[in-house]
């Protein structure tokens, strides 16, 4: 690890904006956020993966991965970060290092040539260059190559120094944020700006969720100048320093960006979420208030309240028909744990029973909220091993599992409904409409007759196979 990278990582582990860090003692903090991985019992993506997740949604840039094939070859084209225009970000570009490149130390040369090639062919406004484990190990100086290329090729080339072996996805997110802070944000001026410009940090427009939110802002006369990085153009991010307020979605991701933007450009930030009706309203209120403090029209909070009232009413009305169908249904909520209380609250509002919610990555604040909501911590669970979760589901401890893709097949093989709330899902669940969509999907999943069918015992599992033969109308003996 280069010294620069080492310093970055240490700095991130001390990130004062991080709620988790704040709760830790000095010594604990120095250990850093990432738990050391257990060989043979690890799961999850690496820092490179996290960095790519955070930056690739910049739609008009080329994202070039410097490393041997697997890093990009096995991983490209795998998410639904949507674009309203450019498609360049969907290219899977890699230096695809060969044995020769590595043995002969040709990595830097190859990288420079690769940058040159993609600029010549695609003429992007910028190239993000991701370092990976092998060039980090062999000591390729990606920062220097990028600096050289930026100058020679008159195109910003941003080094993203987050090789996989330095840690997990979350660290990668933050290292991506550092790259933005070091090389991108503040390097251009916006074409236009308004007194109500805001940035949203850590929202990636998965399945178009940003587009569920933007109309709300537009209705309030708030302009999202840059979403970092969902459906972003390079220039928007580069000129994000002129916005009045930063909203940080999902605290663990880009907290460093929010805090340092405040430090450098005096942009206040707050943390909020667009998952759940209550959270969406809270976020709108917070932004309105902060913008007024930064010079926006004084009627903004009042208009926000009016919109909130209207939208909440509309959402609850849309949800109402499902309530009777969903009431009493038992949910096992198995997310990363971040902000899961906002979903808990929403599920409870429609009468569902949350039988368990994972708090693996929850902050103490999160946990307290869950305790308040659920009347104690009885239902807070940490990691559940797949075999145990399968057993719980198979014996009917829950009617549905809400989780990311990793546990999808635990639920399905246990013949229990599963709703995808991970990054690869195709449904958008943000804002008021997103909550309605979530409820509709819950109902769609729970009411699917396929569950009764797949739980039916096979004829050879029944004591009385003949039972299968007395079941009209499927078997109608004649005469």
């Amino acid at each position, binding site marked *: 690890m280069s010294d620069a990278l080492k310093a970055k990582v240490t700095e991130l582990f001390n990130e004062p904006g991080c709620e988790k860090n704040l709760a830790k003692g000095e010594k604990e903090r120095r250990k850093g956020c990432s738990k050391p991985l257990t060989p043979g019992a690890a799961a999850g993506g690496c820092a490179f993966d996290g960095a790519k997740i955070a930056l690739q949604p910049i739609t008009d840039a080329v994202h070039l991965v410097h490393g041997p094939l697997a890093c990009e070859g096995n991983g490209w084209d795998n998410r639904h970060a949507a674009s309203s225009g450019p498609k360049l970000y969907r290219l899977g570009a890699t230096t695809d290092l060969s044995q020769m490149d590595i043995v002969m130390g040709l990595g830097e040369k190859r990288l420079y040539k690769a940058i040159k090639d993609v600029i010549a062919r695609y003429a992007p406004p910028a190239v993000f260059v991701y370092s990976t484990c092998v060039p980090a190990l062999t000591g390729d100086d990606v920062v220097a190559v990028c600096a050289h290329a930026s100058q020679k090729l008159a195109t910003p080339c941003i080094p993203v120094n987050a090789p996989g072996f330095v840690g997990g996805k979350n660290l990668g997110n933050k290292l991506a944020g550092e790259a933005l802070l070091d090389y991108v944000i503040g390097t251009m001026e916006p074409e236009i700006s308004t007194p109500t410009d805001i940035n949203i940090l850590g929202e990636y427009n998965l399945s*178009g969720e940003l587009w569920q939110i933007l109309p709300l802002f537009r209705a309030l006369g708030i302009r999202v100048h840059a979403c970092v990085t969902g459906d972003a153009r390079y220039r928007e991010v580069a000129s994000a320093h002129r916005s009045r307020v930063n909203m940080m979605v999902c605290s663990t991701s880009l907290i460093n960006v929010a805090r340092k933007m405040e430090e450098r450009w005096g942009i206040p930030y707050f943390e909020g979420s667009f998952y759940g009706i209550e959270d969406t309203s809270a976020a709108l209120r917070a932004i309105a208030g902060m913008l007024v403090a930064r010079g926006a029209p004084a009627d903004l909070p009042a208009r926000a309240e009016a919109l909130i009232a209207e939208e909440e009413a509309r959402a609850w009305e849309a949800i109402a028909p499902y309530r009777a169908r969903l009431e009493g249904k038992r949910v096992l909520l198995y997310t990363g744990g971040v902000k899961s209380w906002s979903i808990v609250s929403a599920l409870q509002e429609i009468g569902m029973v949350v039988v368990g919610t994972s708090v693996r990555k929850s902050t103490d604040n999160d946990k307290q909220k869950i305790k308040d909501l659920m009347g104690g911590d009885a239902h807070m669970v940490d990691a559940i091993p797949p075999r145990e979760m399968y057993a719980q589901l198979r014996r009917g401890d829950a009617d549905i599992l809400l989780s990311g893709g990793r546990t999808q097949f635990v639920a399905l093989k246990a013949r229990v409904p599963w709703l995808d709330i991970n990054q690869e899902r195709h449904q958008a669940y943000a804002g008021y409409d997103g909550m309605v969509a979530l409820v509709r999907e819950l109902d769609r999943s729970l009411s699917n007759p396929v569950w009764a069918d*797949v739980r039916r015992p096979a*004829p050879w599992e029944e004591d009385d196979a003949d039972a299968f033969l007395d079941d009209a*109308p*499927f078997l109608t003996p004649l005469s």
Partner: protein
Amino acid sequence: MATIVKPRKAASVNPLKSSTPLGAALAYLGIDGAVPLFHGSQGCTSFALVLTVRHYKEAIPLQTTAMDEVATILGAAGNLEEALLNLQRRMKPRFIGIASTALVETRGEDYAGDLKLILQRQPELADTRIVFASTPDYAGALEDGWAAAVSAIIESVVAPWSPTVTSFQQVNVLPGVHQTPADIEALRDLIESFGLYPVILPDLSGSLDGHVAENWCPTTQGGARMEEVAQMARAVHTIAIGEHMRAPADLLGSVTGVPVTLFPTLTGLAANDRLMALLSRLSGRAVPGRYRRQRSQLLDAMLDGHFHFGGKRIAIAADPDLLYGLSAFFAGMGARIVAAVASTSNAPNLDSIPADSVIVGDLTDLEDAVHAAGGADLLVTHSHGRQSADRLGIPLMRVGFPIFDRLGTAHAQTIGYRGTRDLIFRVANLFLGQMHEHTPDDFGHVPSAHTIEEIVHDSASLAAH
């Protein structure tokens, strides 16, 4: 329970039905060494022949009594006799299946009686099994013709039970017109795997499975053999598929005394569980491992596939039994049947189709129903539905008869654990193929925007960093 709607229309526009005699012809084509013969004008045969060739991509032996106007007015028996003799001389069929048409039925003679006299008169015809079914075009559709032909064969070929009949491990199968050769082949394999011997009437799996023989043959090659059909009384059980096979099944039951089980559909997990239980009981054997594995694969397909069915809006038009089976399949996977059109009303289970209403009508009724329902995600009907699908701008899944613009139809299996599994994949992949990248327009509700005061900056200038 679905309401049955019969629109009062004078014109059928874009018919869903294929004709009743054509249904009979298809059944006759499932007999070995057969030639179906339409008793009517040459056009009746020509249209049916062309359509059947387009569906199966095979030479089809289908003949006509070539009634011209004079014959129609003066009496048809002469043409019938001449046709039989000519067929016998030219093609040497072992079986001739006659289907009447609207033309000769409107004239209203006693064709069955005529046939009896002809057979008495013509010793040349003695070695050919000749069967007659009354199938006027103006009543019913494909299913009715198919069932009438099967009944006619049972009536004239099957030897009634007598004390001399020794039953052995035989199972009779009366498939419906909606089973493909691949379905029949799968069913035969299944029955055999229990150590039972299937006698299938009709059996398209030998004659219309699309194969290249070593020699030219003017009749069908492969199919049910009459020697075996004659011995259907020897079976321990008869399995019939589809409500339209109830009458032939009843008839076979009464002739032979063999107990009958009718499966309204053999698509779907539950129906096949019941089939396995039945075969297991009949044979006294356990369900073979292969089928246990297939069931488990079907479960997996249901689990992986249900995501793509949930909430989908399906419009189906088909003959009643196919309509029933497919509707139940789609609904069972979580889709909604927003439009269901049956070709005929001669079916007792139309009202158990999982839809608000079932229209007895044509493809125009289907289109209208889709519009009335506020759209659909998928159209499910035969190839003629392509024009409707184009107009509606939704994909068409081709099922039933005719499918003239795709290959391999005979090899598409939709029954059994495996057939159901493949059907799930087919539908899910159709929907997956329609999936698109999200765009801002996907999100409907947009409150009106509030004006923002804009400050214009230098274009693309670099900030002081």
